């Protein structure tokens, strides 16, 4: 169970974008889909990309395999500069970059076997080898016995499994996923994500995935980039970004993750110099350390815990506490500093807003 990210990811970037720009259209109708985007994806990582609709996530991921050609900048995948490849070189390079899609994009005219065989046929792999490889892949994605089924006869989850098998056929270095679970129900989403994570662990394939589901990122992404209006505004380890989002875009996207405290659990209180209502988020190492106990021991404050909740992030606990810190003004200040030092994300709660929320909750 101790699969921490350091063991699966090395620091060498397998995908590196530098100052990538992409504009659609010309003149007044032009849209800057990517503005000076730079990011690097470590080998073996599961790298998430989040952002509001229209932020440029799809354009970014489609630039990695040159389905979209950037106007400027450099895109290196496994050491190859994608923007400078000839037509034939690009075809060869693309075989090492798998891609899965929201709507699967399977060939309806081919059955499961035929769909998975497609990238191998394209690459000119001999028939006998194709057979062995396809059977292996069918097994890998758990579609045993469905080789002859056509896409129309499969469920959404099964179709995406075919998509994954097909994307992995030529043993790619990178797997690109553009909202691969957005068309699936929650149950199936979890299964497909588990499959992707399993494959990542087993084969070491690097995964770059776009998703609108924050819990997807929280569950399986080692690192995450936040996009807003064509720019990457924040990138880093998932735990860091989730517990201490720096950009307003990230905070907006993650709001539901943070501010889901039911207002009514909080008693009538006012922030004063002697009371501070704060919300604490613990992730990674800080989640397992006895920080509150140490706080009481070392500083003269009385933390009154009003609300608590534990979620999981990448299999690690991730805690949220709403605490009323009571004590002398100096001690309260010191306590806040102490918490920051221990890498706890602290939000001071706005009491008037909470009172308003409480009223509206009661009125419902």
């Amino acid at each position, binding site marked *: 169970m101790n699969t921490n990210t350091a063991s699966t990811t090395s620091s060498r970037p397998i995908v590196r974008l530098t100052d990538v720009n992409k504009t659609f259209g010309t003149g007044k109708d032009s849209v800057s889909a990517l503005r000076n985007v730079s990011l690097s994806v470590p080998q073996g990582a599961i790298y998430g990309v989040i952002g509001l609709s229209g932020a440029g996530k799809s354009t970014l991921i489609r630039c990695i395999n040159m389905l979209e050609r950037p106007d400027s900048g450099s895109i290196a995948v496994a050491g190859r500069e994608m923007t400078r490849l000839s037509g034939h070189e690009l075809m060869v390079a693309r075989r090492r970059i798998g*891609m899965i899609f929201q709507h699967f*994009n399977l*060939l*309806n005219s*081919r059955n499961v076997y035929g769909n998975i065989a*497609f990238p191998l046929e394209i*690459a000119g792999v001999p028939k006998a080898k194709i057979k062995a490889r396809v059977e292996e892949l069918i097994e890998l994605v758990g579609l045993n016995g469905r080789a002859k089924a056509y896409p*129309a006869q499969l469920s959404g989850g099964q179709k995406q499994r075919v998509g994954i098998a*097909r994307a992995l056929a030529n043993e790619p270095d990178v797997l690109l996923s553009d909202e691969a679970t957005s068309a699936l129900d929650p149950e199936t989403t979890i299964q497909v994500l588990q499959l992707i994570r399993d494959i990542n662990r087993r084969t070491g394939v690097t995964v770059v995935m776009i998703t609108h589901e924050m819990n997807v990122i929280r569950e399986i992404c080692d690192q995450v980039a936040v996009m807003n209006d064509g720019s990457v505004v924040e990138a880093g380890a998932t735990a860091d970004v989730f517990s201490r989002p720096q950009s307003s875009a990230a905070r907006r996207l993650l709001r539901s993750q943070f501010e889901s405290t039911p207002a009514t659990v909080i008693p009538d209180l006012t922030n004063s110099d002697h009371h501070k209502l704060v919300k604490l988020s613990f992730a990674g190492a800080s989640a397992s350390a006895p920080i509150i106990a140490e706080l009481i021991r070392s500083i003269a404050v009385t933390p009154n815990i009003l609300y608590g909740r534990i979620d999981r992030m990448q299999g690690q606990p991730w805690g949220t506490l709403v605490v009323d810190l009571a004590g002398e003004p100096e001690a309260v200040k010191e306590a806040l500093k102490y918490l920051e030092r221990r890498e706890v994300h602290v939000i001071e709660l706005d009491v008037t807003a909470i009172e308003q929320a409480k009223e509206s909750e009661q009125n419902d």
Partner: protein
Amino acid sequence: MTEFIQSLFTPMLTQLLLQGLLETLYMVGVSLVLAYVFGLPLGVILVVTEPDHLWPNKVINRILSAVVNIGRSLPFIILMVAIIPFTRAIVGTSIGTTAAIVPLTVAAVPFVARMVQSSLKEVDHGVIDAALAMGASSWQTIMRALLPEALPSLFLGAAVTAVNLVGYSAMAGAIGGGGLGDLAIRFGYQRFQTNVMVMTVLVLIILVQAMQLIGEWVARRLDHRSR
């Protein structure tokens, strides 16, 4: 009345109908195949030269589209007469079933190009993205993804084309092309032999129905989208 019905099934008339049917099938069959030999690539080019497709090319797309429209706007009877010198140059004569194949093909090519274009446009662009992302060349994408995905629809289009060709071939018959149309005009219209007219129309109806049904059946067999 019974006398008239008996006149529909005389050995003489059956013989005429059979010959007419074979001639029609010959004209339609050969021109259908030739129309696809030229029309299929044209239809493919019309689609792939569109913006954001495999080989975006405004100039080729515009020119080709204009040529196809001109071809489609010429009434068949005028086209048939207008290209008589061309027909003579190719077949050596402008009269007879074989000669009729030339105008039939020329008329059907632009029609086929449009049918193919609309079939290929039905294919989800995501499939093309997927093929390219897997490292397929444009040619492989066309041959192994675009055309196979459109195959059921292409067969339906071929049935419509064949039915149209039956209609045109009847017109071609009017200027000595042979076939069922020729039969209807020579005996039914010019000699007032109502029995010949009735039977020819009957055979034409059955022929058209059969073509449509075969097209639909093949399309259904090839279509794996629902089941």
